């Protein structure tokens, strides 16, 4: 059996006396959308922060396997996780480079290959063709992504001047420009209107199917979660209380209780 793309084993994260994540284990597969859901404060973003190297986990193992090469994320610095283990992420409160143009945002994401092509700026300073072709292909890749998220006409805008929904999509495109094998999205649908949400669904499905990478998703919007996830993990107070496909999770009594106390309302309308 080939190992999953991401394997999380016994992850715990404590801040002082507070246990934000408690002995969590799960896998996320290649070419799959895995959603992590749970009430506010359940520790979802903390899991992301451990995965992407912003906090060193208190205990646990975070393993990414690319073509049988293994990366232990808990031992890597944040930028190495993105560069070598190829885990990219977006943020709950968008973190674009607001005073740089949309195109520049996407090109910065390709920094490492471009830096190599420019021979650490030497070739670039001399204007050698090696660098020029590399830059042209970086722009081409960025353009391709702009087409996919429908922002080609606004490529030269300052990213900070884009409407909210466009900023969300741009952040996803920027993460994708790093050539990830695993894309972690922190509430990508927050603040989107229903039409934008539907577009987001299509974008995520196309990332899974056309780019063939794994997606890890934190989301409250159940129309997104239930519509596109292949697998759902439910957290409450830092513990995993259920996992499985959307159908199983939807009907799991523990999940319903965690979200709603003991009321009899279905999960769908709990968090719109």
């Amino acid at each position: 059996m080939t190992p999953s793309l991401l394997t999380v084993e016994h992850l715990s994260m404590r801040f002082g006396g507070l246990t934000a994540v408690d002995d969590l284990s799960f896998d996320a597969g290649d070419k799959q959308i895995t959603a992590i859901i749970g009430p506010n404060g359940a520790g979802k973003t903390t899991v992301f922060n451990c995965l992407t190297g912003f906090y060193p986990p208190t205990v646990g193992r975070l393993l990414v396997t690319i073509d049988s090469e293994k990366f232990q994320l808990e031992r890597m610095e944040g930028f190495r996780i993105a560069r070598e283990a190829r885990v990219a992420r977006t943020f709950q409160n968008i973190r674009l480079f607001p005073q740089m143009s949309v195109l520049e945002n996407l090109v910065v994401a390709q920094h490492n290959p471009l830096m190599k092509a420019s021979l650490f700026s030497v070739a670039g300073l001399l204007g050698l063709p090696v660098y020029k072709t590399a830059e042209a292909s970086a722009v081409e890749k960025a353009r391709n992504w702009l087409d996919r998220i429908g922002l080609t006409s606004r490529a030269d805008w300052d990213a900070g001047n884009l409407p909210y929904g466009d900023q969300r999509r741009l952040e996803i495109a920027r993460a994708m420009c790093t050539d990830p094998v695993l894309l972690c999205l922190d509430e990508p649908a927050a603040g989107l209107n229903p039409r934008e949400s539907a577009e987001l669904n299509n974008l995520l499905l196309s990332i899974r199917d056309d780019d063939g990478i794994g997606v890890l998703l934190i989301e409250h919007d159940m129309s997104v979660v239930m519509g596109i996830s292949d697998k759902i993990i439910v957290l409450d107070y830092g513990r995993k209380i259920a996992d499985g496909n959307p159908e199983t999770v939807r009907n799991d009594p523990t999940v319903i209780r965690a979200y709603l106390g003991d009321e009899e309302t279905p999960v769908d309308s709990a968090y719109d």
Partner: protein
Amino acid sequence: MRQDWFATLKESALTAAVAAALMLPLIGLYTSTKAGGLAIGTRWTELAIGVVLIFLGRFALLRIQNGDRLIPLIGGAIVMIVGFLLPLPNGLLTVCCIAGGAIVFLRCCLAWVTGNLGLEAEKQPIAARTQAFLKKYGLWLGLAVLVFAIIFPWLPFVDRRFIDLATLVLIYVMLGWGLNIVVGLAGLLDLGYVAFYAIGAYSFALLSSNYDMSFWACLPVAAMLAAFLGILLGFPVLRLRGDYLAIVTLGFGEMIRIILINWVDFTKGPDGISGIPKPTFFGLSFSRRPPEDTESFHQFFDLQYASVDRIIFLFYVVLGLALLTNAFILRIRKLPIGRAWEALREDEIACRSLGLNPTNIKLSAFALGAMFGGLAGAVFAARQSFISPESFTFIESAIILAIVVLGGMGSQVGVAIAAVLLIGLPEWFRELQEYRMLAFGALMVAIMVWRPRGLLSFREPTLRLHDDDSGLSR
């Protein structure tokens, strides 16, 4: 309307009262050294005139705000004339009188012009128009400035002092561009930039006086040493942000200066190093009588000896270095490393999540910024022929930073304009020597209040997908 006048009068009186409280202890009274210690003296006339001036100034400005043009205009003119004609007891008062009157007068004229043309002086359109203008004619403008700079020493009204001043301005332009990498592009607040300037100057001075190395051999060494020091300083402060970084860099600058003062065996301490050689033209010196076995510039080219040649040559050397700096920075800004600096300024966390190594990016910014500081320092030592720790105080760092911020961070042209404004203008008004620094400080405050984002603050993307402006939103 009557209400209006009353409110204005009241406000002006209040301002005058505060001014009186401010000036009472330090202008109304003064200490003088007498035989048995300090004695106290009074200057009530000065105090009174000062308070009246402030009252009038405030009143006039408030009237202008209320749409009154004529009265302040006449008032300003009268005060200005009084300043010229009346022998006031103190030079400073005369200056204040004339300058204050002039400011009110000009402000009125400005209000008149913009008001009557229906262009209420909104700042946004002006900025946008400047941007459009620069975009269209920027290249030509740059060429024009370049041509002007090249023929500058040969212009009829330009004398020796003027060329020397232009050289100094160019040194500050280089310093500003160098610091711009650190502050403007990478967003790291460095208050100790003078340290690198000092290292550059002292490397050249010491190498040439101890090992007889020439300017051209020392130049790369000075740059390398400064860059190395930049990395050395960078390491401990990598984790620090904003103001913590500012104070540590400030401390670093002061430490270098203290070491320069106290390490007498090596640096000759507060006395400084003199007799620093000037750059040579491919080995040809500019002295009237060169040492045995060597030829000097005028002999080789069979010219009449002129002592100004040396200054003109130095001007061209600095101009060349400045152009090189400019080309380098313009180019590197469009490379991955340049974009990474700016991305780091915008959001360090996002950078890490995209696989950018903040350590390397910050260190490269520090190193390159320091390198240009070192180059400028070596040139400065060559211009002065004499350096001492006094030239490298905190105020120098502040001036360089002011050039960067006033110019509009990240803008090369803005930095150059600010350097001319801050270094060139005050030197030009040398007659007012005593009040020069006072005016300098006031200018810094005034420009910041007038344009908090700097003179030229717009940013041109380093890459464009569309050629026209259709995609630009402001």
